[in-house]
């Protein structure tokens, strides 16, 4: 597969030396990653990046750090073109179970989010646009408990997009979804990234195939051994496990999952995972 032409511009998200411990026990250690604004000629091309990690490795903690909900024990998260320190609300965060305000109708859920950035009339206009684009318009008066899984998912993503500054973080978005719903979510993610050049979707997942199919950058979280062979506590991202899928020609291709190169790459990743993602320094 040939790599499609692209360029990189300024950073949109920078993780520098992120470490996190709980009661002295390291969960994450010295994580460095940077998401750059990728541009493609003649089109709006947002970013889709993936963080892969096995269950229990600390992905949700990393999500909360990236969303500015908890401060890391060490390191910084900087977001946006201005590379400001992250604060809650700067990064949209769609949690695993797609929470919405159960006491508000779908329309109200979106309005309360849009109200943060826009004046009431403008907020309503933006909400209407999202309701249409996400095929939610007929359900505007429904409470979240009345929405189907797919509708709820779209509503949660729309809500975060309405108030975040281009960055949206999805924690285990494919977990527990059937094939049709995964396809639907993939369509939404592509749609989001083509809405605005700066829109960036960060997928934190243990679904390697779907994440790889969507992403243009991929990072694998794992553990390392020190020189003496002892396991170093705290998951990290080694330089060896940072993949530029755009450069590898695996990004932005329609139906990339059917390509032999994609299958080979996924197999390689699986081998790494089966090896426990334990690396020697």
């Amino acid at each position: 597969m040939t790599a499609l032409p692209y360029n990189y511009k300024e950073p949109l998200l920078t993780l520098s030396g992120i470490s996190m411990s709980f009661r002295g026990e390291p969960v994450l250690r010295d994580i460095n990653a940077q998401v750059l604004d990728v541009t493609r000629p003649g089109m709006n091309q947002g970013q889709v990046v993936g963080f892969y990690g096995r269950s229990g490795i600390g992905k949700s903690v990393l999500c909360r750090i990236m969303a500015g909900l908890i401060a890391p024990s060490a390191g910084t998260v900087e977001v946006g073109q201005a590379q400001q320190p992250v604060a809650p609300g700067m990064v949209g965060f769609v949690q695993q179970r797609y929470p919405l305000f159960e006491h508000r109708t779908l329309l109200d859920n979106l309005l309360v989010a849009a109200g943060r950035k826009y004046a009431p009339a403008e907020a309503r206009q933006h909400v209407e646009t999202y309701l249409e684009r996400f095929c939610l318009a007929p359900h505007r008066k429904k409470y979240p408990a009345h929405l189907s899984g797919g509708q709820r998912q779209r509503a949660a993503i729309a809500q975060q997009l309405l108030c975040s500054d281009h960055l949206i973080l999805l924690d285990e978005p494919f977990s527990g979804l059937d094939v049709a719903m995964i396809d639907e979510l993939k369509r939404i993610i592509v749609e989001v990234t083509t809405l605005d050049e700066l829109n960036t979707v960060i997928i934190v997942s243990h679904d390697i195939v779907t994440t790889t199919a969507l992403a243009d950058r991929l990072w694998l979280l794992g553990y390392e051994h020190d020189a003496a062979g002892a396991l170093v506590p705290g998951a990290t991202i080694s330089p060896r496990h940072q993949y530029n899928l755009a450069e590898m020609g695996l990004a932005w291709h329609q139906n990339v999952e059917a390509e032999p190169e994609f299958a080979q790459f996924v197999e390689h990743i699986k081998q790494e995972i089966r090896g426990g993602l334990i690396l020697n320094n």
Partner: protein
Amino acid sequence: MKSLFAPNAQPTRLVFTSMVIGQGLILLLLWLFYPMQLFPSLGEVFRSLGNLITTQGLIQELWASMTTALQALAVATVLALLISYLTALPFFRPIAYAASKMRYLTLTGLTFFMALLVSSGHQVKLSVLIFGATVYLVTGMTSVILTTTQEEMDHARTLGMGEWRSFYEVVVLGKLDDMLEVVRQNFAIIWTMITLVETLYQSEGGIGLLLYKQNRYLHLDGVLAIQLVILATGALQDYVFVLLRKVFFPYSTLGHA
């Protein structure tokens, strides 16, 4: 019919209503045809009820007690909500904890203490009821607040809401329907307390005093008649609360099993 005895079954509305009517009829028939020696017959209870209404002002006494109960409930609800919501601030958490534990205090002791603090009989009655209801409501309301998950709070925060705004959205607005349910459940306690308080402080009458008098003179038919009136009033109140919940919080029962 099989569905009535199958675990977690959902019988049709018709079957369920028929079953409830049937159970009520059986109870009524048992009462009519197998009267126990000490238990007054249905006819005696009805006669006594008529007598209580016409000669002893049962309706007026019930109204007096109910207005006092509603007054106490309104004040107690406001106080309990305030104490419970203040648990957001660590400084106030011991107050909520202490208030919750105060439900173990006895009403008799409290009545005496309140009599020293306030002047009129009505004030004594009201303050005891408010105190009693508040401590129970605080217990229920703080439990509701404790059901708030990190996911819910994080969701509000990621929408750019500050801590107070997140608390308001998730805990205050989001759990208002549950708070109403706590009030509904604890309203029954006020009825238990009011009959006792009216007995201890008899200057203002009330249905509790009427019940006490019937008990004292061993008018079991009268006792039963008053109890049934209280039961019916309570059931009606419950119905009103359920109705209020449906009207004001239509989302509250959606998605329940």
